[in-house]
């Protein structure tokens, strides 16, 4: 009997204490839907600049080749599969368009699943290099697996273009077969700083970094570019941290115009949410690691104050590409789909030019100098793009929208 009375007592008291705060909660709910950052209005941009003479996979339709393949090596399954699938669909689209236009040159696309895992990737890439008909590869998507396999590609003399791995050290390993079809993290940091200062008109910025290689490297780059504007407000958080109360008090008492979070969306989302709940009204800026629909899901309505910087271009804004991609994949192009498409185009046009050996294709990529759909593609001796662009995005009505280039 006593337990019944007891549980009733628990409920009553909990209810009473909830009433106490609930009254106050209600009065506040109407004022919280204001739209984030302070007076800055960067409108969504619905078209991206497409180079007029962009090289497309189709070519002139007269190419001849026989029994050649290109490979995709990267995640198709596993926890981070979505990014890999975005890329593989872009690559497949390029190959399909090429083969449809060139009856005399049918290139096979061979797909190898690394699950995004650096330890699995080494065996997979060895297998790729052992198949003699593969002249070039697209991949690998992630920085970790790229680092563990670059040497294997190098030994086999097999050219590969990554459409998404952005760790700056990848081009400092002395590899001559590695090419990157987008800007790296040390390009993104200064670009993000410029965006925050010039476009968001922030005079004081807080930089919060996580404990990953990516977050630490990017924070160093942006801090260098921001200088005095951020030197007085820095914080470091940990992966898997969910309660940010001490970071929030630091930021709300520093009253910055913008917060830059250097890390991934899993921590950025609760941080942004707790910042807005804590009364922060400035802008929240995150890099490509934060730019994900999951961020919006997890931060909820707080995400309306958020901007993203990314070396990736939104392929869904190029209508010819978006329509064809939609037909193939059954969904709109995702992050890095366009970069995958452009990278595959480079290899395909090389094969069209009559190349039949790995060495010749490597040479072709080294000397490549033409526009792709996303950007101008020309590499320096380390495999880094000679000129790279960073793009800006923001959250509008619960969706990520493009707001133009920022560097």
């Amino acid at each position: 009997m006593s337990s019944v009375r007891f549980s009733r007592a628990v409920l009553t008291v909990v209810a009473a204490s909830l009433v106490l705060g609930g009254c106050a909660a209600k009065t506040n709910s109407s004022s919280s839907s204001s739209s984030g950052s302070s007076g800055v209005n960067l409108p969504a941009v619905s078209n991206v600049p497409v180079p007029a003479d962009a090289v497309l996979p189709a070519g002139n339709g007269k190419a001849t080749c026989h029994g050649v393949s290109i490979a995709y090596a990267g995640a198709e399954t596993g926890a981070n599969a979505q990014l890999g699938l975005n890329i593989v669909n872009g690559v497949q689209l390029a190959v399909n368009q090429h083969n449809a236009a060139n009856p005399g040159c049918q290139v096979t696309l061979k797909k190898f699943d690394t699950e995004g895992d650096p330890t699995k990737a080494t065996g997979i890439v060895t297998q790729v290099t052992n198949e003699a008909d593969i002249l070039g590869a697209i991949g690998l998507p992630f920085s970790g697996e790229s680092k563990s396999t670059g040497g294997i590609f190098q030994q086999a003399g097999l050219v590969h273009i990554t459409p998404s791995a952005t760790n700056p050290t990848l081009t400092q390993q002395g590899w001559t077969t590695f090419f990157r079809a987008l800007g790296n993290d040390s390009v993104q940091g200064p670009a993000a700083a410029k965006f925050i200062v010039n476009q968001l008109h922030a005079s004081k910025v807080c930089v919060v970094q996580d404990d990953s290689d990516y977050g630490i490297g990017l924070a160093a780059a942006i801090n260098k570019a921001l200088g005095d504007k951020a030197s007085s407000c820095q914080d470091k958080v940990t992966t898997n941290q969910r309660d940010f109360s001490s970071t929030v008090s630091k930021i709300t008492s520093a009253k910055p115009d913008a917060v830059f979070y250097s890390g991934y969306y899993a921590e950025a989302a609760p941080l942004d949410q707790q910042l807005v709940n804590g009364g922060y009204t400035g802008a929240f800026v995150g890099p490509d690691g934060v730019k994900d629909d999951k961020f919006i899901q997890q931060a909820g309505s707080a995400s309306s104050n958020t901007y993203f910087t990314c070396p990736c271009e939104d392929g869904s804004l190029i209508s010819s590409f978006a329509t064809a991609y939609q037909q193939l994949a059954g969904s709109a192009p995702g992050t890095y789909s366009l970069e995958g498409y452009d990278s595959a185009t480079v290899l395909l046009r090389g094969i069209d030019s009559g190349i039949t050996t790995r060495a010749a294709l490597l040479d072709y990529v080294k000397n490549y100098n033409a526009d792709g759909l996303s950007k101008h593609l020309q590499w320096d001796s380390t495999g880094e793009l000679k000129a790279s662009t960073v793009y800006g995005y923001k959250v509008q009505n619960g969706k990520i929208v493009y707001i133009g280039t920022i560097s």
Partner: protein
Amino acid sequence: MHPLTVFLADSSWINFDVTSFRQEFWDNTFNGLTFGAIYALIAMGYTLVYGVLRLINFAHSEVFIAGAYALVFTLSGLGFDGSVPGLSTLALIGDMLLACLVAMLASGAIAVLLERIAYRPLRRKGAPPLAFLITAIGVSFAIQYAIFIWRGASAEPAVILFVPKALFSAFGTNITNQQLIIFVAAIVLMLLIDQFIQRTRFGRGVRAVAQDPDTATLMGVNKERAIMLTFLLGGLLAGAAALFYVIKVPSGVVFNGGFTLGIKAFAAAVLGGIGNIRGAALGGLLIGLVGNYGQTLLGNAQWSDVIAFVVLVVVLMFRPTGILGESLGKARV
């Protein structure tokens, strides 16, 4: 100069940010007490089970996260999502109580099941303590990865119940309704559990088994029922903690979200004196405070856990049984 002096004088590796620490002291205090209350509720689950069975129930963090999932599913079902709900106060309280009840039942059920499936068979066979410990760790991983396979690697979408609003100010800092609700409700729950153990017949049974299982059985106490009740109480508290956790961190429900929280709650239980219910409450609040102070003082959350555990080690050096001592079994009847 001595290398150690050089090492300590070189401030690049460690930086005391005393200004921020002073500025944000009260902010950190109230936030620390709020999160500390959540630690304390979870710590009570560890301490209850340890007090009775001398078993560190490492799966308790998964009991908590299971409750958090149940809570989030219930709230999503009721129409809560990432935007601030425009509900009347009464409807909000009703929904919160319902979700809390579901979470408590889910956590309680998981805890009791855990005891039935994992621990009771071992007890029947008279297995050594190490077998229990490794079973607890195994169950913890099993539940974690079952959730991972089911829900994937990323957190559940945010479920926002209400936005914190300043009620009044103290020491130059605003106290929000969120902080007050969590702290007061948690303290009330802790008091109730404490009184339940101290004053009711069931509580007496639990203490009797904690003190001497064999004699308690001879005196007519149903030992198995007392053990089950202990797990149930711990689970119910973890379920309530899940509500407060989601109020504070609306998007914090993820498959491994209980792990760090559980470790810190366990540290809180040890700090207060494992087996001692009031000790767990005190330890939880202290761990919450110290972690927050440490993070601001060193400007780095990466140090927050270090500070919390350094304090734990220092306290244990001087009081090896924790601040209040291990006393569930030795309590006055």
